[in-house]
């Protein structure tokens, strides 16, 4: 890296050229990890002695749930960067990430429901984790709706950044409120540093591969979508200039 600073990628042109160079690697890594992880997980792991083969939905459920939260955290970080340093790429990356977050939240909710049906005997329970994800989904919806509603991109970036900040605080508050409100049926975290609580190794390794696949997929998608947002801004800038010259 040497004298190169991370902030150089805040320049849209620099970001575009670099992201175009590295994108194929992320697409490839995502494809390899997802194919290997899912096939390994679905076909080459034993059935759980209690849950049977339904446990295998874990390979979609856990990674998407993790990404749903991590994407919000990433949006929070990029929003803060926009507020503090006003790098446009940062704001656009937050905008690009939000719809991916929505999809991840929906996958987590849907796979949770499908898993919950045989386990708990119901598609939906007001379990704290499920409820928290439902609330997270509402936060994502509001965030995206606010971006879409405002015409001036800088105004939209400012307002959505503040909403993301305030929303994060309220999301954490909601999480505690929901925990207090209903203690829940959901099993504990599937992955934790505490070895005793972890799922068995035989499920654990393919799960890690799947999580890596989701992470790579997200990085590829967010780079790609940020590039699209940058090009949209470029079109806007060109149109503005043409209008000024007319």
């Amino acid at each position, binding site marked *: 890296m040497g004298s190169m600073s991370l902030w150089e990628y805040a320049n849209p042109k620099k970001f575009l050229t670099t992201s175009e160079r590295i994108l194929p690697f992320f697409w490839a890594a995502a494809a390899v990890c997802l194919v290997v992880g899912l096939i390994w997980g679905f076909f080459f792991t034993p059935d759980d002695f209690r849950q049977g083969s339904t446990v295998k939905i874990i390979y979609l459920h856990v990674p998407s749930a993790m990404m749903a939260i991590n994407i919000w955290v990433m949006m929070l970080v990029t929003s803060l960067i926009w507020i503090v340093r006003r790098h446009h790429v940062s704001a656009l990356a937050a905008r690009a990430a939000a719809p991916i977050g929505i999809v991840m939240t929906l996958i987590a909710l849907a796979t949770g429901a499908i898993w919950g049906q045989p386990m708990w005997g119901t598609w939906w329970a007001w379990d704290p984790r499920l409820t928290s994800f439902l*609330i997270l989904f*509402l*936060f994502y*919806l*509001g965030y995206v*709706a*606010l971006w879409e*509603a*405002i015409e001036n991109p800088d*105004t939209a970036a*400012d*307002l959505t950044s*503040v*909403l993301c*900040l*305030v*929303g994060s605080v*309220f*999301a954490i*508050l*909601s999480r*505690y*409120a*929901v925990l*207090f*409100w209903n203690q829940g049926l959901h099993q504990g975290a599937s992955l934790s540093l505490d070895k005793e609580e972890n799922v068995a190794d035989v499920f654990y390794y393919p799960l890690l591969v799947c999580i890596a696949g989701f992470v790579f997929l997200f990085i590829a998608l967010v780079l790609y979508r940020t590039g699209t947002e940058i090009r949209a801004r470029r079109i806007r800038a060109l149109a503005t200039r043409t209008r000024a010259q007319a």
Partner: protein
Amino acid sequence: MIALLMRDLRLAFRAGGGFGLGLAFFLIVTVLVPFSVGPQSQLLTTIAPGILWLGALLACLLSLDRLLALDWEDGSLDLLATAPLPLESIVSVKALAHWLTTGLPLVLAAPLLGVLLNLAPPGYVWVVISLALGTPALSVIGTFGAALTVGLKRGGLLLSLLVLPLYVPTLIFGAEVARRGAQGMEVTTPLLMLAGITAGVIALLPFASAAVLRVNLR
């Protein structure tokens, strides 16, 4: 600041000011509930605290889009922004005026509507206490939502979409106080959480509201 508060109150009480609309809405929602769930008094007793809280929340939400939009449309907001008042106090005063004209009447009306819903006797005092503690938070959070959407043409629906998730913690703890109180259970924890949320948003959220309002004014 007092001048602004008095003006907002006066505007609310004058014709077309919208005072009482929230209250009427609260009344109608509460009256409609027995029609939709059936007249069994046992069931109504169980759900009464939650219905009262939900009704109050929706009534608060209903009046939010007038909170800043009217001052925005007639240019007062621009003029206020050039006045010696900091925007932070302007949004705080606006929230206070909203609470006095919307939240407070709801708090006072809740026991009467509790009768209609067959609220358990120990519940009355807790419904009033929880609403008195919680509705200021609803007004302050709502002011933030109103400040976010003030420049938008059809901001009303978006405002609800943005504000409702932010209302979740207040609703959970507030309704929990009322529910536990009505069942004669311990209420300390949710009561403290509710008070904490209200104190926190009153102290901090006006800064966020003023920041987004500044962005919207430029």
